[in-house]
């Protein structure tokens, strides 16, 4: 059984999909997933490693573990401007996951480690679709490993910090305007570092505040593998095997959150996430050979976004908890530079969740999200590529948590 599970995990885990704002994926806890992805003012246990390390030292349990995954099923429909031609993506289901473990060393200090996947993007268009010269498919993946320490001053106020080791890789395929199946394949991986700090303040039995900052991480690809498939006559000009450098920012987040225990059963939570997409100006490729011909600068000019979230949890009894939430995620993209590689539309989402505790120590958490990308005509002006996009995304998720 364990073997099978591991196999499933390893085959599914490592791909993400397009998902609302840019290429960020905030599915880092199935309890939080059910509550509109609110998490910074909640203390759900070891998942605070991601949502707010400040809350970790205030968790109720001595030891806490969580693991889970989501299955992102996304579809994009594109219609060319001035035409009735439609094209759909054929995105594989992707599976962001998380594993957290945390324990209290004493009343004041807790430590933990988390492995999670907060960024990713998979867009798979047909190889010969109308935008093939911009993108055929892209798979961007990042896995974060975050050892964390948290400290509280008293029963109300905790702070925490984690060091992030980020491992990312990317593969891009795009067609070239030569006869045959001329194509460029770019593949690279890199490791980078960042941090996650947070503060948690439980003002009263009912009211809690949280703030969390996750730093920007610049994924710098050095000597990635570029493979060019071109007609024989062009192979002296465009060598088959080449190396490239590129860098892609994983933007910083600053999250503010409030939660309020309205009744014994009902918990309400609000959050505002500031995602600093403004850092993503341009996606540039520099090639080792034939740079003058092949190097490219591709403007993106993203802007910062603010995501308002609202979530609620209702405790039915000791065994069942129900959750619901919603949020609105603005597209960080620029009017002039919207590319089909990351179809990021203004997105409204609702979320549902349920926890079941068959025994006190164990909770099974499921969630379901549906995202609606607002239909909009978009353009990538440097390529004069224009059309209308719409997205619908379903994300079921399941996780378990243990406490001791």
């Amino acid at each position: 059984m364990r073997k099978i599970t591991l196999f499933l995990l390893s085959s599914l885990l490592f791909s993400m999909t397009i998902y609302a704002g840019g290429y960020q994926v905030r599915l880092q806890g199935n309890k939080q997933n059910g509550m509109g992805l609110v998490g910074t003012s909640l203390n759900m246990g070891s998942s605070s490693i991601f949502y707010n390390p400040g809350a970790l030292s205030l968790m109720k349990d001595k030891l806490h573990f969580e693991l889970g995954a989501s299955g992102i099923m996304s579809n994009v429909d594109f219609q060319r401007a001035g035409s009735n031609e439609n094209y759909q993506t054929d995105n594989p289901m992707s599976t962001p996951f998380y594993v957290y473990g945390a324990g209290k060393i004493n009343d004041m200090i807790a430590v933990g480690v988390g492995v999670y996947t907060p960024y990713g993007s998979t867009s798979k268009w047909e190889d010969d679709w109308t935008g093939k010269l911009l993108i055929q498919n892209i798979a961007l993946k990042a896995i974060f490993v975050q050892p964390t320490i948290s400290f509280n001053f008293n029963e109300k106020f905790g702070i925490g910090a984690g060091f992030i080791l980020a491992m990312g890789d990317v593969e891009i395929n795009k067609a070239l305007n030569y006869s045959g199946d001329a194509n460029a394949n770019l593949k690279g991986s890199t490791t980078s570092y960042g941090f996650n700090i947070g503060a948690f303040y439980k003002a009263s039995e009912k009211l809690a505040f949280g703030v969390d900052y996750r730093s920007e991480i610049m994924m710098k690809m050095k000597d990635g593998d570029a493979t060019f498939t071109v007609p024989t006559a062009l192979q002296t000009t465009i060598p088959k095997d080449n190396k490239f450098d590129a860098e892609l920012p994983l933007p910083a987040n600053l999250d503010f959150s409030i939660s309020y225990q309205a009744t014994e059963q009902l918990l309400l939570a609000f959050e505002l996430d500031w995602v600093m997409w403004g850092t993503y100006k341009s996606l540039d490729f520099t090639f080792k050979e034939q740079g003058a011909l092949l190097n490219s600068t591709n403007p993106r000019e993203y802007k910062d976004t603010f995501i308002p979230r609202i979530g609620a949890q209702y405790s039915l009894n000791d065994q069942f908890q129900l959750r619901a939430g919603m949020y609105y995620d603005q597209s960080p993209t620029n009017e002039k530079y919207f590319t089909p590689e990351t179809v990021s539309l203004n997105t409204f989402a609702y979320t549902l969740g349920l926890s079941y505790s068959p025994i006190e120590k164990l909770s099974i958490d499921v969630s379901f999200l549906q995202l609606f990308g607002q239909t909009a005509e978009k353009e990538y002006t440097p390529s004069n590529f224009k059309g209308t996009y719409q997205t619908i995304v379903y994300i079921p998720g399941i996780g378990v948590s243990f406490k001791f």
Partner: protein
Amino acid sequence: MKIRYLFYLALLAFIVSCKPEVNEFTPSNGSADFKTYVALGNSLTAGYADGALYKSGQSYSWANILGQQLTTVGGQPFVQPVVTSEFGVLPGKRKLGFSVDCLGVTSLGPVLDNGELDPWSNHIDYTVNNLGVPGAKVAHLLAPGYGNAANLQAGLANPYFVKFAASPDISVVAQAMSMSPTFFSLWIGNNDVLGYATSGGAGDVITPTEQFGQYYNMLAQTLVTGGAKGVLANIPSITNAAFFTTIPSDVIDIPDSPEGQGYLAILNGEHGYAPYNAFMESKGLPYRITFSIGPNQMVIQDPAMASYGLPAQLQIRQMVEGELALLTLPQDSIKCATWGSAVPVPNQYILTQAEIDNINAATIAFNNIIKQTAVDNGLAFVDFNAIMVDISANGLIFDGITFSTKFVTGNLFSLDGIHLTPQGNAVVTNYFIDAINAQYTAQIPKVSVANYPPIVFP
């Protein structure tokens, strides 16, 4: 328990499972009726490319692409007089290939493809919507017998029209009218200047403007008699085509080497052009031929110099900036037979400034007539002249494909430097669609340029 919830979850996912669907565009015919569309014109309309009319090139004619799009707004299937050979009718098509020049240097460029020519015996008996005839001028579309094989010998018929003429003595326009067209396109007039231009002003004459106007109006008047609506297109700025802009006029490059210095001494010396320069000076004429290290303007024949009473062997001079060498100029003769330096380049490979002025003046005059005809008859109009000037100056980008008027790398012109690539045809089709949609408040869907093939590299 866990399994039961998973099941519910799966069920929920199934219930809400629906795909996104964008439906922003509804094709509509507006105030035009596209039921029977006929295309009249020349080689561009016929789908001529790479120096020949061949099967796949013909299938990418802009008229065929437009005809396919019109089927979404009430058009009947668009039928072409199908060429069966991939090598072509008459001259065979060019492809990109490697050839070795007189210096033993191998390079990539247009070479003759191989294959079997389309058999002449097959006369096309079905009704065709594409009446584009390669080589046709305005007057030809009105000429009875232009498709009669018996007139070929006398040069009064066109073999391409012979192949699909409905009867021997029918004219192109009469054949069009016999189909009771509800919509037509007319892109004609290019050959009324192009024949002169591609022969370096030596092999053809430009149609007199008055005659052009008379014939053009007759054509348009005939086509609208049945109440048909249509689209007219004007003559592109042909001297911007790759055929005229690929070979620079200063192609004579003399290296700074002992051999180069030696050659320079000969060219400028008593056995070279020194006596010519002295003679011109003595006559008070401004012509001088001088060479220096680096690029030099070619020496050409210019029969117009006869007006100074010069004998034929002295009707030569160096080219000046702005004059054009044609793509047909044999490169080996430049490299190995001293053409352009010791031997003057024959007139038919060159457009002199005076010839360019003639072409431009005629193009402007003809285009005024075409524009006026469109306005007078309430027809859609495409200004390809302005479009080509713009592409020549600024390029064009579409779906990530960069177009320019450059030969081969510009994506627009096929290997003959005049006719279009499939992607170029798709671009042209979209301009037609824009003009038709605007004139008749129609919604003809545009085509995806990236879905059409580029120039084929080996």
